[in-house]
């Protein structure tokens, strides 16, 4: 299937090239925004530029990894709407893997490279004190973030099973979540922070692991081990996503033909 997709994508060469570049552009802009913010103030939310970029790097690395793998799940609403999910359900493979490989995002390769580069540069820029747990965390944090974003992607796509015309609702949580995690959580306030950072768990994607990597205490008062445990947040998120997804597939109604 992977090979098949590659061949069908490359049968439209020009559009493929533009897609690759377009995809890269949006991620670059996200990172630049952080730099622009720090031109206006040297310390934001209690963090310096380098520290904030580490969070951005974690968020972006997690997001691009996830987006490269399950980003297409966004298309689920198209399949549900048109009833083409029928075809997918008729094949002897899981629905999720098929959706993922149905549109293998070769165009997202550059974006992944860029995201990982930002993360790498940010790690170097902070002169971290490399202890073994930190090395492990540095590797696991973006992966945990990717899985967490993946769960959010699956959850928001599942909405399409109930509301056929779910439109951009899901994107509020996926792309919104990415933008949220690109900044230190301490810049947000009130119920908004409580909801996104802790109730939905976005603080554990980049903010908490970054604190642990930097060896800084949390200005918001969580203990230090929380940062090291942060990648584990992806587990309950995955569980919830899996349950919702399964009940969604059963709720699928197809279209008349």
């Amino acid at each position: 299937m992977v090979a098949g997709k590659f061949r069908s994508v490359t049968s439209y060469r020009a559009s493929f090239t533009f897609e690759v570049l377009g995809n890269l552009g949006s991620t670059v802009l996200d990172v630049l925004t952080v730099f622009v913010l720090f031109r206006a103030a040297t310390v934001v939310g209690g963090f310096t530029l380098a520290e904030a970029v580490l969070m951005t790097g974690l968020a972006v690395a997690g997001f691009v990894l996830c987006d490269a793998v399950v980003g297409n799940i966004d298309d689920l609403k198209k399949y549900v709407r048109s009833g083409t999910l029928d075809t997918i359900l008729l094949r002897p493979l899981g629905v999720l893997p098929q959706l993922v490989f149905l549109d293998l995002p070769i165009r997202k390769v550059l974006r992944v490279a860029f995201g990982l580069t930002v993360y790498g540069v940010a790690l170097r820029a902070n002169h971290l004190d490399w202890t073994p747990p930190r090395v492990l965390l540095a590797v696991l944090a973006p992966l945990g973030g990717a899985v967490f974003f993946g769960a959010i992607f699956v959850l928001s796509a599942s909405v399409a099973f109930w509301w056929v015309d779910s439109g951009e609702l899901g994107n509020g949580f996926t792309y919104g979540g990415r933008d949220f995690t690109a900044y230190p959580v301490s810049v947000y306030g009130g119920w908004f922070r409580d909801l996104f950072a802790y109730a939905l768990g976005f603080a554990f994607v980049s903010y908490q692991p970054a604190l642990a990597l930097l060896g800084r205490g949390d200005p918001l008062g969580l203990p230090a081990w929380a940062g090291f445990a942060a990648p584990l947040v992806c587990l309950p998120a995955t569980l919830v996503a899996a349950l919702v997804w399964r009940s969604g597939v059963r709720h699928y109604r197809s279209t008349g033909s």
Partner: protein
Amino acid sequence: MIRIENVRKDFTVRVKAGRLRREKRVIPAVDGVTLTIEAGEMVGYIGPNGAGKSTTLKMLTGVLAPSAGEVSVCGLRPVPQRTRLALRIGVVFGQRSQLWWDLPLRESFGLLRHIYRVPPAEHDARLRRCRALLGLDEFLDTPVRQLSLGQRMRGELTAALLHGPEILFLDEPTIGLDVVSKQAVRSFLGELGRTGDVTLVLTTHDLADIERLCRRLVVIGRGRVVHDGTIEALHARYGSRRRLVVDLETPLPTGLVLPGASLTSVEADGHRVTFALEESSAGAAVAALVAAAPVRDLSVVEPDIEDVVARLYAGASGAP
């Protein structure tokens, strides 16, 4: 092979009721269908638009979960055991493509071989057979998007059979096809059915498909089975019989009674008469007629299944 018992599928639709208010309404698409299909059968599943044909098929293939009732296909429950079932059934939806839009058929088939994990030797043997029977060779390397509907449908049939399914479900396989392609599809399915390795379940609006292919006919209307049996049984039940149409040199002698036939109409001053045949053989009636009057021309007309079905549909969609 297939056993469904009291299966229902309800759809909830929201209907506008006033400016902002919308009412929920439950519509039973399939309303208590019970059906058993044995291995090797060829079953035609027909009904008017919206009767629940496709919905039933989708429940049998694991696409839709039934709202109530038991479904068992190849001894598996379609929705929970969907992927296992998919290896054992083949499905062709006339209005939905299983093929990769941008790839030539040859490569689509290759991909399907990997997806269904078919050993290369089996795959090649099946593909060779389909190529010969369906004449695929001339367009095997054309991308699917450039194929005509008839060519694509032949490709779809092949795609559904390459993993050697035990049951083949066809949802309107001849829809939109021209006469030649329809013939090709029908004779291929006929060939397939004769071997008896594959159970065929097909829905269609073209009754010629059924007459050519299926001994058993299931008619569904408003989500319920209204007929299940042979085509002959359908005719017997709805009183449609074969007709004997005769052109005579002289008007029909009055009071003539033929064995096993009854006079239904007299036209052209008694020069053209029609009898309804009560028995399967027209021999006795024809012999008696030829003895009684000078016959110019004579034909036996098969009952028109379209008429019967149209009446059946009208009955099914009439009073609840």
